[in-house]
């Protein structure tokens, strides 16, 4: 299940559970569709996500790439220890703005 809300012009996506090969295509489609319709300030809130695989990482890569090409802004927040390790080992922490929680993520995107 993917919750989507808009906070002060920032679109916040909050997928629940696992982002693996089964869930990743749907998340990618939803987020890319939103960006295609004009969303340029985007937050991925992972506070309800307990597991992410390489398929989930690819969604983050594709979204970050598309937003960069559109001069959009992107932040990720709410990572548990396991997901945080995945981001660090893969180097995604070098290309994606990672912050603690949703408020900080929205503020970071608005303030970029």
């Amino acid at each position, binding site marked *: 299940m993917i919750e989507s809300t808009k906070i002060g012009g920032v679109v916040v996506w909050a997928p629940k559970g696992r982002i693996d*090969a089964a869930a990743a295509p749907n998340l990618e489609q939803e987020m890319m569709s939103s960006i295609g319709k004009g969303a340029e300030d985007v937050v991925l809130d992972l506070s309800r996500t307990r597991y*992410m695989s*390489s*398929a989930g990482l690819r969604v983050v*890569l*594709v979204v970050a*790439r598309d937003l960069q090409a559109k001069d959009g802004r992107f932040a990720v927040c709410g990572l548990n220890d396991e997901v945080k390790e995945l981001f660090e*080992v*893969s180097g995604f922490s070098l*290309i994606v703005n990672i912050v603690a929680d949703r408020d900080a993520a929205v503020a970071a995107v608005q303030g970029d």
Partner: protein
Amino acid sequence: MSQKPHLTFVEEILLLLLDDDTGAMKRVAPNVMELLIAGAILMDLALRGRLDCDLQKMVVVDAAPVGEEILDGPLAEIAGAEDEADPRTWVVRLSARSKEIQEAALKRLVERGILRVEDRSFLWVFGSRRYPMIDDREEREVKLRILDVLLSDRIPAPRDVALICLADASNAFQVILSAQELRHAAARIEVVRGFDLIGQAMGRAIRKSVQDIAAATATAHHPFY
């Protein structure tokens, strides 16, 4: 116009490793080549939605054949495995069938009209009356994709990340880039190759293999040390 299907990563890396003029394959240590081809297969299957992995394990999420002979054999092998293994273990396991995969991929490139065989060497079909533009585009596209990622700050597409992992592991950058470009891109290569977990696993397997061979060679030369 229908979109041209992607070449497999094995085909792309073989094209990068072929010398345009002589048709000879760039020298890559046999054990490195085997691990490289295995990594290419796994990355291809992952991007086609057949495999998924994390830091501990690799799993088959869809065992349906993709319709490419060189991919479907390994997919069936992984799907039929009784144990669960991490990506690096699978790179090593699949490397045992790399020779047959490489032969099949070269044959496929000939069938696609991209290479021809001459005096036992594979040659690009440059200047061919049948497919001159198509073949030129295949080679240029692969190289341009790599250069575009390495010489900019743009976030790469997943396919380009995989290609950079493979080019790095095979030292193909020494052919594609000048010495100055390579120095300039070194830090960028280091970052980008981390983005793909299978690419990382393949890189670790190759480094371990190279270290083991170096250690064995040193022992052979200095048996009393």
